């Protein structure tokens, strides 16, 4: 694929996804203007239908929702570069949340070291949760996809159980933690949003992702494994080890997403009735972002906007599930990008000179 195609194809997918969402809204008798105005308002805090001063709290909340999605995007992207499809982000986020809850409430520590221990606990739990499908793929040749999906369900029930065992658990949540990522400073500059220091975690993760994948020999052998597993094995790379490590690093990033949600956004442990969809958002983000760090960052902001705007849409009688439909369409179109580019070339080819098209088809007369 040529370089400009890598940028055009995801943009085309996003446009088509939003277009389908808009058409669907029109057909079901809802006004798409409300959807767009809500999206804009949720991102920059400016209501185009009711002009007034910009409210930065919306921007802060938008970042709060985008941060874990960027992390799960990095998680899926990391595995994907190694040729693995980590669909287990959902479960890894949940066990990461539960582990950081347990670490925050049970470890006899205080201050910044405690906070770091909590984050590491979340990352470790996610890594362990992703280790299981990785090792089963390598040792037993069981597809990572199936195991990871099952672990999503196990993770939901297991993390609920862990949270219930906490000493201060009552009414589906624990007491506030002694430590948290909450930041009065970040809250004050965004008009009292829940924006927290997790943003540092996300930025560090983005840099680590980029350096690890693009700049180290370990990253090179991971990418080689992703391109052609047998080729990499023939070249002497430890393919099986790479698969397990890639899954664990991928899981650690998803676990971190869970940790910053618990430690930053809420500051207390929660019992959940169902997963919150961060893992599946991560799939969309990684694919749209082309699995590189800048792309994932930008795509994370896009899907963060779609996620944060949902309650406001519902309040305006726009079913919030339209956001899910748009996300699904975007994933679908990105997955079909080779086919779509073929169609684009056919359409473009009609307007070009005949001999150019012939060359593209391999020089046949």
């Amino acid at each position, binding site marked *: 694929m040529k370089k400009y195609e890598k940028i055009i194809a995801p943009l085309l997918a996003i446009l088509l996804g939003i277009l389908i969402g808009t058409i*669907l809204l029109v057909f*079901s*008798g809802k006004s798409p203007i409300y959807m767009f105005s809500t999206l804009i308002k949720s991102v920059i805090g400016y209501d185009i239908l009711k002009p007034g001063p910009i409210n930065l709290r919306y921007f802060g909340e938008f970042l709060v929702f985008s941060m874990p999605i960027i992390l799960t995007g990095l998680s899926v992207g990391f595995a994907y570069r190694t040729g693995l*499809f980590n*669909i287990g982000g959902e479960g890894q986020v949940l066990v990461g949340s539960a582990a950081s809850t347990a670490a925050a409430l049970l470890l006899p520590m205080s201050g910044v070291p405690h906070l770091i221990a909590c984050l590491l606990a979340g990352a470790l739990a996610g890594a362990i949760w992703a280790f*299981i499908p990785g090792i*089963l793929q390598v040792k*037993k*040749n*069981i*597809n990572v*996809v*199936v*195991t990871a*999906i*099952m*672990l999503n*369900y*196990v993770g*939901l*029930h*297991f993390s*609920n*159980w862990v949270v*219930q065992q906490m000493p201060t658990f009552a009414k589906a949540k624990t007491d506030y933690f002694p430590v948290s990522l909450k930041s009065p400073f970040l809250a004050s500059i965004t008009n009292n949003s829940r924006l927290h220091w997790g943003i540092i975690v996300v930025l560090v993760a983005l840099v680590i992702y980029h350096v690890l994948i693009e700049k180290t020999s370990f990253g090179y052998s991971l990418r080689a494994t992703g391109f052609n597993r047998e080729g990499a094995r023939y070249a002497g790379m430890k393919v099986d080890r790479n698969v397990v490590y890639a899954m664990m690093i991928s899981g650690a990033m998803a676990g971190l997403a869970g940790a910053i949600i618990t430690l930053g956004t809420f500051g207390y442990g929660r019992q959940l009735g*169902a997963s919150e969809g961060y893992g*599946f958002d991560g*799939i969309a983000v990684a*694919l749209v972002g082309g699995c590189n760090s800048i792309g994932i960052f930008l795509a994370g902001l896009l899907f963060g906007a779609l996620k944060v705007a949902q309650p406001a849409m519902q309040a305006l009688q726009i*079913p919030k*599930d*339209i*956001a*899910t*439909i748009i*996300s*699904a*369409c975007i*994933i*679908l179109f*990105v*997955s*079909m990008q*080779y*086919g*779509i580019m073929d169609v684009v070339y056919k359409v473009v080819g009609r307007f070009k000179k005949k001999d150019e098209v012939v060359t593209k088809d391999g020089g046949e007369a």
Partner: protein
Amino acid sequence: MNILYDMFSLALMMATPILIAGLGGLFSERSGVVNIALEGMMQVGAFACAGLVFVLEPHFAPGSPMPIAFGLVLGAICGLVLSIIHAYACIHLKADHTISGTAVNLLATGVSLYACQIIFDQQRTPAFTKAISKVSVPILKDIPVIGDLFFDNVYPTFYLGIIIMILTWFIVFKTPFGLRLRSCGEFPQASASMGINVIKMRYIAVLTSGFLAGLAGGVMVMSQNTQFTAAAIHGYGFIAIAALIFGKWNPFGLLGASIFFGFAQTLGLYVKDISFLAVFPPEFFNALPYALTIIALIVFSGKYNGPKAAGEIYDAGKR
């Protein structure tokens, strides 16, 4: 002994949607297309079925089975329609099967909940009054043990599942069509060289799998629920795929695997009555069927790893 018979009857009810959806997956994977979108197709089928049953019920005599029959048919058709997207993406537009399947699952969740809000103005369908009821087969139910297990107080949908299973076995393993279908899943380039239309075969297989998965969704919501909600399918489509692997892509193995998973689900409901299991927390039993799926895959993972070309993007020019 009675509690065991009750459990078995419930296990068969739980097993039926897994069996039917798994047979759909069998068609698709045997033709070379991995279909993790079964979950989404079941979801759409369940929504369409539950919705139509609710709408039709007032127009029929109370207790009439007709609304359920219409509902199941509509559910199956909706599953088929959704599968067209997956088929087109995977076969024509060279999409990765797993990614396309994930997208279709997400789309199914979005569309069914969106439609609930547009049509019924809430996050779920309203409750229907009459679900599928149990039947007993005369004469056969008097056979000792077997009669109690399979012919007394059993949901008729289980027999539907068995009929579909036998049909699938016959079509896939005993007809020329089935041989061609299976060859497309093993070595599509070789099939194409023998004059088999690989693309057509795969379309037929994926559409069949959508039809069956939609039917399974309808069966599931009509026997295990009173309405369609976001959690109506809760992973049964994925368990069907696991059952397919566990049953070695064979209809009879699939039946055994489905009953096994049905039992795992039932255990959680009966745990209160079995004293030595009651010490475990309820979360343990909620997670049990999914954990058992993984354990079963570990224990029974054997040499045969399914159709060779399943999941590969078909490239007619590849050697």
